């Protein structure tokens, strides 16, 4: 048996692991079976798969993997990651919610933060209403795989009319000693008229082996609700991250999402926003700074289903070393979605001779009374600007840094939490060293 598993493909191994462990997993077994079947049918996408053309999945899944998850972080190791002093911190270690490390004291009334496993029983009505309703197992093999195999994650619920001032900071950490595949799963529900700020950060602590994290987050933004969502991806060179975020927005809601990718061996973001009612506002911002052999692939879909909605997307990238950055954005305007305003912009700076940029901004439009546009540009740092600064006594290195900061600031300035902005700026400054 042992040898049979070793020679089989990663796909077979995943299926084998699923069959042996599924009885110990929480929730609906039938859903898990369906999801696994869907994963089996779709398979692991290769380079010929249009959506995964520029993401080397094979690289992600190379080598032997372990499926067990362990908890071994201490408070001292976690402390520096809690960079927001005023926040509710949630720790997810190797895909498992760790209550002992999180600080969730004095949560305001109407705010629930608990493990997903817990929510499935203690909050079953809400859980069943929303769980796995938006991230469709048929559309993507990794969503299917996550739905089949997830062990835990965080559940956040903001009740009707509740405005929570302090941000909620969800820290995903991987601490693998052996190569691991994990499937964290999060569900965020912001009810009618509620407001919240949620930050997800991805970090590695004391990791000696490769971690492939296949994370899925479903977000519901109900009527008139306002949600600010931030993602900071800062894993080390052993971190492989497949991060799917599926958002559904209801009437007159406002959702902003900001994705910052500063390190990690391979990061693939699948971000989908469904604008399911009228007068919705959505903002998507992203900044990726890559170096070395990093691969960063941002896929976004904005699906305008109803009239009178606005969406605005801005992704910027600075590419150095032998790294590859991909941006693939799609704006989808359905037949009834008249009076839609949708804008998309992707700008890149290619610093090195060996870097690669792939960009594919797409518009798919079936309504006529719309204003949609996209634009993309790629180039190196403007020589004239460098000259201008040099002529004023600023050295070449500093001049370049200054220009890169200015380039990144368009995205960084959209951050509303000051402490977070300082943290990101610090991170950016460090990558420019």
């Amino acid at each position, binding site marked *: 048996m042992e040898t049979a598993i070793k020679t089989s493909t990663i796909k077979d191994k995943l299926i084998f692991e699923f069959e042996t462990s599924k009885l110990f997993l929480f929730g609906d077994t039938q859903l898990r079976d369906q999801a696994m079947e869907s994963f089996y049918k779709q398979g692991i996408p290769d380079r010929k798969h249009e959506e995964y053309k520029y993401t080397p999945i094979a690289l992600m899944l190379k080598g032997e993997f372990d499926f067990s998850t362990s908890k071994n972080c201490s408070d001292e190791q976690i402390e520096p990651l809690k960079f927001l002093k005023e926040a509710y911190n949630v720790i997810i270690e190797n895909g498992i919610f760790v209550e002992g490390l999180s600080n969730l004291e004095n949560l305001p009334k109407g705010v629930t933060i608990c493990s997903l496993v817990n929510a499935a029983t203690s909050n079953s009505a809400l859980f069943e209403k929303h769980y796995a309703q938006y991230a469709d197992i048929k559309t993507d093999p990794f969503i299917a795989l996550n739905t089949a195999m997830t062990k835990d994650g965080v559940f956040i619920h903001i009740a009707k009319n509740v405005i929570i001032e302090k941000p909620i900071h969800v820290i995903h950490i991987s601490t693998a000693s052996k190569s691991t595949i994990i499937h964290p799963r999060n569900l965020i529900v912001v009810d009618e008229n509620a407001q919240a700020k949620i930050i997800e950060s991805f970090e590695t602590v004391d990791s000696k082996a490769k971690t492939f994290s296949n994370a899925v987050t479903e977000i519901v933004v109900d009527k008139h609700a306002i949600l600010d969502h931030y993602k900071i991806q800062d894993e080390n060179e052993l971190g492989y991250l497949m991060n799917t975020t599926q958002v559904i927005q209801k009437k007159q809601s406002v959702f902003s999402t900001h994705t910052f990718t500063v390190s990690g061996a391979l990061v693939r973001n699948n971000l989908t926003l469904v604008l399911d009612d009228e007068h919705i506002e959505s903002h998507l911002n992203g900044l990726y700074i890559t170096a070395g052999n990093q691969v960063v692939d941002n896929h976004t879909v904005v699906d305008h289903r109803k009239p009178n909605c606005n969406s605005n997307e801005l992704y910027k990238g600075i590419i150095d070393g032998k790294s590859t950055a991909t941006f693939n954005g799609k704006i989808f305007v359905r037949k009834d979605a008249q009076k839609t305003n949708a804008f998309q912009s992707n700008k890149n700076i290619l610093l090195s001779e060996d870097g690669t940029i*792939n960009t*594919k901004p797409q*518009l798919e439009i*079936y309504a*006529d009374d719309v204003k949609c546009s*996209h634009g*993309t*540009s790629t180039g190196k740092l403007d020589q004239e600007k460098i000259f201008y600064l040099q002529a004023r006594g600023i050295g070449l290195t500093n001049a370049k840094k200054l220009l890169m900061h200015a380039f990144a600031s368009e995205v960084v300035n959209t951050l509303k939490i000051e402490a977070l902005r300082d943290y990101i700026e610090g991170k950016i400054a460090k990558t420019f060293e």
Partner: protein
Amino acid sequence: MNEVLEQKLSTEYKYGFVTDIDADNAPKGLNEDIIRFISAKKNEPEWMLDYRLTAFRHWITMEEPKWAHVSYQKPDFQDIIYYSAPKPKAVLNSLDEVDPELLKTFQKLGISILEQERLTGVENRIALDIIVDSVSVSTTYKKTLAEKGIIFCSFGEAIQEHPELVQKYMSSVIPYTDNFYAALNSAVFTDGTFCYVPKGVRCPMELSTYFRIEAAGTGQFERTLIIADEDSYVSYLEGCTAPMRDENQLHAAVVELVAHKNAQIKYSTVQNWYPGDKDGKGGIFNFVTKRGICLEENSKISWTQVETGSAITWKYPSVILKGDNSIGEFYSVALTNNYQQADTGTKMIHIGKNTKSTIISKGISAGYSNNSYRGLVRIGKGAENARNFSQCDSLLMTDQCGAHTFPYIEIKNNTAIVEHEATTSKIGEDQLFYCKQRGIDTEKAIGLIVNGYCKDVLSQLPMEFAVEAQKLLEVSLEGSVG
């Protein structure tokens, strides 16, 4: 406005007549025997037959591409006649010997070859090669061109008379392994146009090929090969029409352009194949592979296309910028109405240093149609200082149609500057109002606005074509604002 719309949307396809020309057909279906039959009919040398058979054997192993944003009933490749030649096809010495029925066809098409002959000596004339179904029936002005050393003839003739040139260049830009339809074409192509412009010659007139599918149940598979040798210049135009039929006919052409040092090729297309009726029945499937290569430095290839016909268009005229300082251009207007579907765009592959490319694409969708731009800009690692500018605009005429943009941009050199812009909108009510206020009726106003919108592209066309293209746009579109 709706009345105008109704009235105009029902505008019939003008070129949909059927001419009863006695045609010499091959039996339906495709196998090695048919390919041998075609090759024998055309009296081809052995290397040509070998090439066809290799391509055919490769084609059998291939699958139809499915990635395009179009949906259609897959053609049955065994239900197509792969060879149809208008009889009598003996070599003609003068136009008087041409089948009178055929001449009538030309008159209906508005191509007056006789007129042209009488006008010999007039400056701005056009040399014309006419291809009906799969066979070249007439090439004009051969003599004038021959004096300059320019070879302009049918592909079949070129195989017989200039085998060394054909062997050297054919399939050098588009190998038969390139894609499904290119492989099919390489196996069964029946005729086409061949053009060679020698060193230092500036072609004195516009060269033109006129394509028409006439026989029912046939597919048209022509091949065009244009070679511009060092320091030469050529401008080439093609036009296409087909009769109205309920069935879908397949057109799978291959066009290869080769530009040597300092050479320039300008290739313009006005494509008006039968688009199907207003319920989307019938029409041509236009699956074409067009590619040019700027082989050496300072060469330039420019594609201009006005696409108004065909039930389904699947076409990406591309340029490989291999030589340093070479330039690639792509100007396109694609208009779809009723149930037409178009997935068209370009590929600019930058390999050489200081290469430049420009892409201007204007899509117009009306009725229930879907119009997609799909383009690739690839900057290779060695393409120092490459420059690309792309602009893709879409205009939506009704709330039932779709306009899509799928650009692919791949950059591997940090000295490259690449820009892409796209917008989607409908005709501005205020623009219409402005025109109407000045006594221009809706119909004319739309024509005016659309022509203005397409001006960047239309101005690239040679004068005769520009006028025709403008009319074509008006006919295909007028009043179709919902």
